[in-house]
């Protein structure tokens, strides 16, 4: 579909796949699909397909947080997922996505990092959240954030015996305190769009990703896109994100 057609449709109040402007595509969540990982989930939003694997390793806590576990989030936009992705280290989009997902988890206090301390100042559990895009059809952020949270909810922390990780024995379920849900709202001309397709993303003026907690409070936000937003727009988009996050939360 060419950009001119997408724009023409949007201006006349329609979307390529005949969805309402505030509707999500079909969302499918599968957990525990990667047995090798301590936690995993595969999320499909329409044709967008993302796998998140959680690995638990031992590492040194940060010096300014000596009694807390460590969270590390990375994303790979490998060329298998789209003709637009290139081989090589993560570019700015992949890096930004990883950091947005990371902030949602970190700032919400999702993981009880204190319970992941093994020896203060010396050893703590490192939780690696690795995002693999399998097929890119837009809205990678929401799909990745949802997959990350779905995976964390089924993650188990393995047993430690004499400082060795015994992976086929479980010490405990990963201690979780909160469940952040991230919803991205796009803006095109005077219209707000939920769950943009790849072709829609290419013509959006700007978008805001909002991480929402169970009580409706917001723990992280990110605006991207080349155009500016008025305060009214931003407020409306935030409200819409919070509203839609409730819908997505029900799917977990």
């Amino acid at each position, binding site marked *: 579909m060419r950009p001119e057609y997408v724009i023409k449709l949007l201006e006349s109040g329609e979307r390529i796949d005949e969805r309402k402007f505030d509707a999500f595509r079909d969302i499918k969540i599968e957990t525990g699909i990667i047995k090798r990982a301590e936690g995993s989930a595969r999320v499909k939003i329409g044709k967008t397909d993302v796998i998140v694997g959680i690995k638990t390793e031992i590492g040194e806590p940060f010096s300014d947080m000596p009694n807390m576990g460590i969270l590390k989030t990375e994303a*790979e936009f490998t060329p298998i*997922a789209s003709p637009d992705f290139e081989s090589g280290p993560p570019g700015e989009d992949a890096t930004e996505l990883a950091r947005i997902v990371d902030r949602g988890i970190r700032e919400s206090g999702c993981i009880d990092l204190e319970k992941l301390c093994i020896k203060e100042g010396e050893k703590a559990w490192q939780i690696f959240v690795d995002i693999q895009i399998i097929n890119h059809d837009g809205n990678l952020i929401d799909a990745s954030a949802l997959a990350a949270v779905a995976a964390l909810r089924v993650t188990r922390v393995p047993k430690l015996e004499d400082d060795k990780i015994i992976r086929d024995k479980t010490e405990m379920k990963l201690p979780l305190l909160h469940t952040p849900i991230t919803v991205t709202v796009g803006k095109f001309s005077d219209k707000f769009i939920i769950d943009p397709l790849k072709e829609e993303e290419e013509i959006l003026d700007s978008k805001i990703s909002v991480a929402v907690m169970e009580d409706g409070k917001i723990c992280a936000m990110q605006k991207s896109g080349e155009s500016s937003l008025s305060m009214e727009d931003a407020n409306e988009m935030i409200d819409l994100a919070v509203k839609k996050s409730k819908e997505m939360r029900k799917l977990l």
Partner: protein
Amino acid sequence: MGMKTDEKLIMNGKRLDGRKKDEIREIEMKVGVIPNANGSAQVRFGDTVAIAGVYGPRPLFPKHLQESDRAIIKCRYNMAPFSVEERVRPGPSRRAIEISKVTRLALEPALFLEDYPETVVDVYIEILQADGSTRVTGINAASLALADAGVPMKDLVVALSGGKINDTLVLDLCGKEDNYSDADIPIAFMPRKKEITLLQMDGELTPQEIKTIIKNVLKAGEEVYKKQKEALMKKYEE
């Protein structure tokens, strides 16, 4: 290969996962799993899962990489960080670079590259879960993805590993067997004329043992070929 254990890998004809020496793990194959790719497939052998995507033939830049009389094929084998027991940092390791090369050479002889001069066929393999024999699983997936993409082929490419554990010759090594094996031989071949396109080995074997393993793999590969054919046909059933 190379690790030592007192644990018996095969006892009374049964392997750790209950298999007989010449039994292949449970196989699952699905074609057309990545809508953006021209062709794709996901293949599972036991707990090893690989997904392959093919893009092309498509234009190749920079121009100096083009071949005037044929397409070139590029291959990238990559392991997801969560695919292995201990998380692996994203990015190509030397092992992944070598496997990318031998995979390319395993697939190339099967393709009619002359039909598409000056272009490139990009093959991407992601290992989602690793439990031994990942490169052959990747090759099986890539072969299906190439057929799904409509790249003209002389034959499919079938791949399977053979080896020796506790003095017994076996087929389809899983992760633990791979680590503690006396030898591990991944093989890829074109089934119609049994032409071998990948042959690697590490370990210690007599020439006779190697020949026996090759023969066994080529025979057992027919089972894998059947599954590949089924998977391709299944995409077009309803």
